[in-house]
């Protein structure tokens, strides 16, 4: 079992590092991990869950606000949702999503419709990609524990 545990731990470490290196996650995610302990072992997963729900809701709001068939686009409504998404992505360490929100916000302020639509599509892809990757990461954690091992602390720096 030890060889398996070591292998899984190595995979977990490498995968975690790659997520940071590819800017999926930033040090705020690390901060969230600090808040997880035996008393709250699923804290990070739970917060990220809420974040992804937020994404679904806010992206739907943005799409609705950017729907030209209902009349003139209200960029301030779009902007308000973008601001919220920027905030929550920042709070969970979702680096790419946050960066997209920054550009998105600029397009809203410039009332650039094409830019907004592009950002909306990208943000949708990005949060889904992150969700999949984190699911893989959490699954690795689960496998380590099921094999009787301990999830290693990964030093990003």
């Amino acid at each position, binding site marked *: 079992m030890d060889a398996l545990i070591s292998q899984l731990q190595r995979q977990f470490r490498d995968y975690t590092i790659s997520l940071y290196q590819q800017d999926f996650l930033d040090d705020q995610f690390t901060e969230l991990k600090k808040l997880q302990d035996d008393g709250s*072992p699923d804290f990070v997963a739970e917060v990220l869950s809420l974040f992804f729900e937020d994404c679904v809701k806010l992206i739907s709001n943005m799409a609705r606000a950017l729907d030209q068939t209902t009349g003139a686009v209200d960029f301030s409504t779009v902007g308000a949702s973008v601001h919220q998404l920027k905030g929550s992505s920042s709070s969970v360490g979702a680096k790419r999503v946050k960066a997209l929100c920054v550009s998105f916000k600029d397009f809203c302020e410039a009332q650039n419709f094409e830019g907004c639509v592009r950002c909306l599509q990208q943000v949708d892809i990005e949060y889904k990609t992150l969700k999949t990757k984190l699911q893989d990461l959490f699954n690795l954690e689960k496998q380590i524990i099921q094999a009787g091992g301990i999830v290693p602390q990964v030093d990003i720096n």
Partner: protein
Amino acid sequence: MGRDGGVSCLMRAEMNMMSVGGMESAPAPSDLDEVHVLAVDDSLVDRIVIERLLRINSCKVTAVDSGWRALEFLGLDNDKASAQLDRLKVDLIITDYCMPGMTGYELLKKIKESSNFREVPVVIMSSENVLTRIDRCLEEGAQDFLLKPVKLADVKRLRSHLATKDDVKLSNGNKRKLPQDSDPVTITPPLTISTESSPPLTISHDSSDSSSSSSPVEMFSSSPIDDDEDDDVLTSSPEESPIRRQKMRSPGLD
């Protein structure tokens, strides 16, 4: 022994996470020795995170989703004094700045206008490092200004300014108010909790608090401030105080 990990715990998360738009009940009188924080943020994710940050630092937390709910909780939402006042103990209010309806700044003003809660330290959180915003809040009496995303170190620092009642209790169990220092440099004294058991809540100076970093507010007041800009985003410059430097983690990105 399998563990339920993964991201698929939506329902459980919602059930476990408290204060979705509502309020927890205030701590019972027997819990009066613990620091009680009222956290205000319209973002659920942020509420969950700040709640956890505070709990990990041994605070009891009531988290609400708007300034109006905060006022409601404090009994400030109508003109008559709250009958619950002798039960309600709030040692710190931490609020987001940007909220729909009532901003954190407006909430701050209302708290400072109230006779019962004006002494309660109010900390503002914001994702934007806007100098004029920070100054305005400090001028209105905010104790501190935290840049989001809030980190464990930020809350630890806040917590260290809030001495627990146990620290200043006299051996015979009587509680007394400590004398205020009159330090001309500080805008507001470092946070300590009054040891009086009855309202109104007052903050008094803990003369035994010798931490060299003292109040973060001091740092703001002593560094040169150029407030000619109209809500410009702050960019880092070398001569800033440690606190200000700490706040400017991502210049230009916000």
